């Protein structure tokens, strides 16, 4: 187990390093100049470039950036004057995280519940109904679902505010738009996993021992079906993170996702780097946690170190 975690952690660190390096050089390859403007004089632009160190060779800039990165200094935004990248992240991330985690939590829970119900009522109407919801979740990408929901629940029925952030009711729609894909994925995965478990011999044994259905379902079926579901969490988190790029700009939420696309099109170099590394590190850490959780749940991995196997 120790070796397994160490292995995964080394890969995680390598990933962040590759991510930072590749992003840096790719970003420098994007044609354009962040300070090119008709409004400022050439001398001023020159001064700005010098101030931010953009007049130096790209490799020199790279080593300086990586050195600063190791000290936790992500630099200053070029376009949002007087604000450091760390400040922007500190301000935007809690908003994104609150929305993302709420959405993730509820969509996983609902997905699992749907999956369990589907498996229990296999090929009867609850199964068909819930699978229909799951299928819709696949067929409706966020940029389709978002405007539709805003129109029906916000404009027509006036149940929920159309845009905004701050109160709980403003969070409902973006959370649903973000999470529906995960609900769909988890429902399908849980249904398939549980159908596999339900035919196992130990379930027959459990029923033969005289346990009631609730005990069999909760203690034996659900617990054993969960293992493969945990691995689905990694892509789920990535999906919600990506979705936040669209959803945050659609619902005018002051999170981090909004900044990301803007920073790239604006050529705000330090902000691109800071956000990419931050997102990358976040995702890699989450995947690492998922892997460790998977290792803890799966005895074949948990025990692997002790038997002296690789």
């Amino acid at each position, binding site marked *: 187990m120790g070796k397994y975690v160490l292995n995964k952690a080394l*890969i*995680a660190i*390598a*990933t962040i390093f*590759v*991510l930072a390096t*590749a*992003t840096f050089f*790719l*970003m420098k*390859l*994007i*044609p354009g100049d962040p300070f090119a403007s008709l409004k400022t004089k050439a001398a001023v632009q020159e001064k700005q470039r010098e101030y931010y160190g953009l007049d130096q060779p790209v490799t020199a800039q790279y080593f300086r950036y990586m050195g600063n990165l190791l000290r936790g200094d992500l630099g200053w935004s070029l376009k949002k004057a007087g604000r450091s990248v760390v400040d922007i992240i500190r301000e935007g991330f809690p908003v994104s995280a609150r929305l993302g985690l709420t959405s993730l939590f509820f969509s996983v829970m609902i997905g699992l519940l749907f999956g369990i119900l589907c498996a229990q009522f296999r090929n009867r109407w609850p199964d068909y109904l819930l699978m229909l919801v799951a*299928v819709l979740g*696949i*067929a*409706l*990408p966020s*940029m*389709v679902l978002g*405007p*539709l929901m805003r*129109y029906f629940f916000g*404009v027509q029925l006036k149940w929920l505010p159309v845009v905004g952030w701050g109160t709980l009711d403003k969070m409902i729609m973006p959370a649903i738009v973000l999470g529906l894909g995960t609900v769909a994925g988890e429902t399908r995965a849980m249904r398939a996993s549980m159908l596999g478990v339900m035919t196992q011999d130990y379930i027959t044994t459990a029923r033969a021992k005289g346990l009631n259905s609730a005990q069999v379902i909760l203690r034996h079926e659900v617990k054993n079906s969960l293992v493969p579901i945990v691995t689905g969490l990694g892509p789920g988190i*990535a999906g919600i*993170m*990506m979705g936040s*790029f*669209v959803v945050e*700009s659609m619902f005018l939420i002051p999170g981090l996702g909004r900044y*990301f*696309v803007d920073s*790239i*099109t604006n050529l705000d170099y330090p902000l691109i780097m800071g956000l*990419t590394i931050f*997102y*990358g590190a976040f*995702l*890699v850490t989450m*995947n690492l946690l998922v892997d460790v959780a998977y290792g803890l749940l799966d005895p074949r991995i948990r025990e692997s170190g002790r038997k002296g196997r690789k």
Partner: protein
Amino acid sequence: MSMENAETKEKRIFQPDDFEKLPPPSQTDAAIARKQTTYWKDVWRTFRKNRTAVISLIAISLLILMVLIGPMMNEFDYRTNDYSALNQSPNWVHWFGTDNMGRDIWTRVWEGGRISLLIAVLATLIPEVIGMLIGGISGYFGGWLDTLIMRFIDVLMGIPSLIYMILLMLVFGSGSIMTLIVAMSLTGWMGSARATRGLVLQIKARDFVTASETLGAPAWWIIVKRLIPNTLGIRVVGITMSIPSVIFYEAFLSYIGLGVTPPTPSWGQLIKAAGENFRYYPYQFIIPCMMVGITMLCFNLEGDGLRDALDPKLRG
């Protein structure tokens, strides 16, 4: 057992022709009464029973047909403005109505479908082929090369592909269909490589590979002609399932303004353009949305059906 034997011994009566020679076996005896089924026939038989998958297949075929002939079915083309007919609701002249520049939506939807589906197919197949070759090489040679390639893939898979797609789109200059396909190919081959490698590891121990090796076939020939064709059957499911995600990425990139440049339509482009005035002209938004939805749905259901049909373990 012994009881039975005793009984048969007692009751054994010889017939007069017991020691006669049997006639030589005729041609008709040797033939197997029922025609042998091949793997693919068997797959088709299972697949045909799956009603949702068959309906999806028909829907996909219809979509492809419409995308091919749809733009030719009326006299309008996708880029000509008609300022006397702005934002018309669906009617007998403009079957799906017109957009805010007076362009015929029927033509634009099918024309956009051509581009979206073209991107979807190419951006699925190209990374798939790259992944298959890399996965095949990694799995067949094994050893340090395999470890190196797999660690490299582990690292790349950890990076959110969308970030890379956005950066690549800007580096190559966003807007053209080629750029989209290249960006998606560069970010999409890892999953296929990993899956192919896993399958190759299973297949390379089989006898027909050993036979080829004994006969002196070169490594590339074994990988391309022996190993990869044998992984195709299972990979078909993965390929089918990745088409909807490519369509999603295309729509996503168009939505954030990095997709195909106007006036060339694509479904993502149409959704983005119509999303802004969805309140006033909902049909402009809903039609391309339905196309994207139906396509993503059908390819997913199709993939499910194929998986059930291809995987003998899942057959009930």
